[in-house]
Every structure is written in C-alpha cells, then in structure tokens.
C-alpha cells in the first residue's frame, strides 16, 4: 500500500496528465480504509462496490474525453445525514435504521455530476448534534491524531476520514460549528458557506435557519474546488440564493497584499480565553498577514455570549420542532445526548424563540457594520486542542460560548484553517469569516495563510508517514 496521500488538486493534476487513474486512486483509499477504519470509525456505511463502479466509470470517461472537472475520479465521502439514493442514510440514529432514501440530496447530485467517486457515508453525531455518544447503534468517530481524543462534531467522520486520507474530500453540515469544529480538531480545512449558497434539499435538518452544507478537505484549494461544484440555486430549497456563482479559485495564489484583516481580539482574549497554542496561531496569522502586505484592523463586536445565546434558542427550538414527533413517539430510540437537546427545546418558550430572532436581526446588523471596513475577520476556530473523547461535558453547548455559532447566526461564510499544533501534538486552528457571499476573498485570504505556513506538510502519525513539519 502506498503511504502517499494526495490532495484533490494534486490527484486531479495527475489524472489529467494520465499519470494516475481513478481506479488506482480509489484502491489506494480503500486500502487505507481497511487499515485504519477499525480504529477510526469514520464510516457508517462503506460503499466499496459503488466506489469501484464510480472509479471505473470515471476512468472510461477520462480516457475517452479527458476530465470534465477537477473532481472527476476523486474519492469523497458524505456525512450520513445527506440522502443517497439506494444507500442507507442513518443520521447515526436508531430511528433511521433501515432508512434507504429513494433520491439523492441536491449536494450529492452535484458531486456525482462532477464525477466524484462515492466511498461511503460518514459518521455524524445523532441527527447532527449532541455527541460524542456511546449509546447509539454506531460508535463515534475517533481523531486520527490520537484515537483517544474527540474529533468534535457533528461532521466527525468527515473530519477523521479526510485527515487520515480515507477520502480526499467530504461534505459536512454546520448548524453551530459542525464543519469548522471537526476541521479544527482534525487538522483539516472546513468551509461553512454563506446561508443559502449550497442547497439543503435532501439533508436532514438540524435547525432550519442555521443549517449549512459545505466542503471539508486537506487544503483551502480543495475546498474551493468542491464549493465550485456545490454552489448554485436550487428551487427545492426554499432558502436557496439566486446569485451567480463566481470562480472560487480566482483569488488563490494572489496573496494577501492589500487585504484588510479585522481581528476580533475580545472573543479569544476576554469572552473565552483560548489556550496558548491557539493564541500563538492567531498571533502568527496576524504577523503572516502583515508580512504579506495586509492591513490589520481591530474590530469590535458584542460579546460572543450574545451571539451564542440567540443561536442557542433558535437552534434548540427549530430542532425540537423538527424532531418533536419522534420524541413523543419513541424517545427511547434517541441517545442520551440528543434526547437532552430535545428536552431543552421543551424548556424554551415561544417568547424566547421570537426574542432570539429579534436579537439575531440586531446582531446581523452589528456584524455587517463591523465587516463593512474589512475583507475578512480573524478569530479562533476552537479554544484548545481536542479533549479526551470520554471527557466532553454533557452540557458543553451551554456552559461556554463557542467561536463558530456567531457566523451561523449571521449566515456569513467562515472557514477554519490549521495554524499549528498544541503541547499534546494535536492540531489547532484559526477561523476566518467574510461578508455574505464573500467566499472568493475568504478562500484567497485562507489560502495565503496556508501557503505561508508549514502546517499542511504533516499528517497524523498513525498513518506511518515520514513527512514532518
């Protein structure tokens, strides 16, 4: 088995040059799945036959007329709340044992149309919230950097599978940080696009007005390539945006000269002080951007707790409404942590929900005003390295604010990019955010930081790779 792990863009270049076949690439990924999946639990369903069939089809198409997109023949995985026609879609819940959708979600259709190879369905927290859980029909995913550590969630399998090279890219969903959290703790790149940019049709809801679907991959460039295939209007999603889709790779390689980078120091210094390694990553990002010719501007926003409180009521009540029927009929089928979240919904009032929506409008206006003078804002992705998987507090969404929910609440795009390693050898991350539909400049800024730092050179030690930063 080869130990080399390619990025999407590297594999695409080799495929285009005829130096790598999708079949060969898929077999390399399947070999890694066989080797590491017993420890990682990144997959709920491995679609081995489908992957081989997709790869052969892609190989024939490419031989006949060349690749139709940079994703042609690339092995990917989908979070298991994304409907896949004829393939088990569990939402990691006993409620969905045996659930086989009769149609693909729009995002699955988009990646299939781009020629990807579907490797399987990836582990999630139950209905995309509340983990890690040890009382579900499937185990939680483990962090490839240390399998005793948490991946974060809820796109936990996607984070683990990409970091370990079991797939080259994958889809996650993000209602309060479920793409960016696993990206931060698993040392990969995760992009939550602007609300409405990627269709939610065919994806199980977590909270309707906060749900986003987005790419997770090893590099910023790979996320841009995936977003290119995913973005666009879909009449099947009532919140789908009607904007033209730009070229998300256009700014890659242009550096950061002339960009204005806002820094939200209050959040990571006062509202939730971060670990020294995370702070060092933020400071390094500021220095890096300055050295690249960007202008650093301190910006002021309300406390992170304000954004989290509004987000809590909206996500909790929308989730409760979506799954009320299941909770009333078969509450015992939920795991403890997801059942907790549904109980919380019963403890919120209608006035809580509407007041949270009113506060949301104020906070959107506040953030829009603060962002008017900058291209991107910089803060932490996660406050520390990954904790032990068996030491995640039961009320972890209540007692401390997270750095990600604010951008779900405001619908603005945000990305987590690795920024180093902590004292336990686990990855840490910065988070960048931009104005609505500002993905192109967001990716440009993230790519500039990524290219100026060495953090993409190191893979998890369990893979036995020689590369080191």
């Amino acid at each position: 088995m080869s130990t080399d792990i390619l990025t999407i863009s590297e594999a695409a270049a080799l495929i285009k040059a005829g130096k790598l076949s999708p079949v060969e690439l898929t077999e390399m990924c399947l070999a890694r799945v066989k080797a590491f999946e017993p420890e990682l639990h990144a997959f709920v369903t491995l679609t081995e036959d489908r992957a081989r069939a997709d790869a052969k089809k892609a190989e024939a198409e490419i031989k006949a007329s060349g690749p139709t997109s940079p994703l042609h023949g690339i092995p990917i995985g989908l979070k298991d709340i994304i409907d896949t026609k004829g393939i088990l879609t569990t939402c990691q819940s006993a409620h969905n044992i045996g659930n086989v959708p009769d149609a693909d979600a729009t995002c699955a259709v988009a990646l299939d149309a781009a020629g990807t190879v579907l490797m399987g369905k990836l582990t999630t927290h139950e209905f995309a919230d509340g983990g890690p859980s040890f009382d579900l029909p499937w185990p939680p995913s483990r962090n490839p950097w240390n399998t005793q550590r948490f991946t974060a969630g809820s796109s936990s399998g996607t984070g683990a599978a990409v970091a370990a090279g079991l797939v080259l890219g994958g889809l996650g969903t993000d209602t309060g940080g479920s793409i960016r959290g696993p990206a931060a703790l698993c040392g990969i790149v995760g992009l939550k696009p602007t609300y409405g940019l990627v269709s939610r049709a065919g994806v199980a809801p977590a909270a309707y007005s906060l749900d986003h679907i987005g790419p997770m991959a090893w590099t910023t460039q790979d996320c841009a390539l995936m977003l290119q295939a995913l973005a666009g209007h879909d009449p099947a999603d009532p919140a789908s945006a009607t904007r033209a889709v730009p070229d998300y790779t256009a700014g890659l390689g242009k550096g950061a000269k002339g960009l204005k980078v806002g820094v939200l120091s209050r959040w990571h210094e006062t509202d939730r002080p971060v670990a020294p390694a995370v702070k060092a990553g933020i400071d390094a990002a500021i220095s890096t951007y300055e050295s690249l010719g960007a202008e650093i501007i301190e910006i002021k926003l309300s406390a992170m707790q304000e954004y989290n409180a509004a987000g809590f009521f909206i996500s909790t009540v929308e989730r409760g409404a979506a799954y009320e029927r299941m909770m009333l009929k078969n509450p015992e089928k939920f795991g403890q942590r997801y059942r907790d979240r549904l109980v919380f919904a019963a403890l919120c009032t209608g006035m809580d929900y509407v007041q949270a929506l009113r506060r949301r409008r104020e906070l959107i206006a506040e953030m829009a005003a603060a962002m008017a003078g900058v291209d991107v804002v910089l803060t932490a992705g996660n406050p520390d390295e990954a904790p032990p998987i068996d030491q995640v507090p039961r009320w972890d969404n209540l007692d401390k604010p997270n750095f990600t929910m604010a951008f779900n609440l405001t619908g603005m795009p945000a990305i987590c990019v690795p920024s180093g390693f902590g004292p336990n050898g686990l990855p840490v991350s910065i988070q960048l955010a931009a104005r609505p539909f500002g993905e192109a400049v967001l990716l440009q800024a993230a790519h500039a930081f990524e290219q100026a730092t060495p953090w993409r050179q190191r893979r998890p030690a369990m893979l036995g790779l020689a590369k080191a930063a």
Partner: protein
Amino acid sequence: MPTPIASEAEMSAFLARAGFILTPEQVAEYVEAYGYIVEMSARIRGERSYMAEPAHIFSFPTEESAR
C-alpha cells in the same frame, strides 16, 4: 455554573406541556442545564423598538427584489 433558579415543578410543567414524560430523577438531572437556559433567556432580552422585527421577515435578496 449559574445559580439554579428554577424549581423542578416549573420544569415539569414545561415538559408536561410538551408531552415529554420524564421521571422525577430525570427532571432533576436537567436542573443545572435549565439554569443556563434561564441565564441565556435573560441575555437575549433588552430594550427594543416595535420595529425591531425578527430576523428574516421579508428580507428578500437584493437581486430578487430588484426584478
């Protein structure tokens, strides 16, 4: 941890209204969590004008409204 200000009876009333059947022991487990919820409930309330409407009420995208 916030000071628990809610009684279990208050929580039980909410849960009964929702149709969720929990044992007294289970209700007691949520007292700590409910304290956080009450604290956040206070945080989202403040002086607002009548015109401070909920987010997303007829906020059509610019391109759509220009047609």
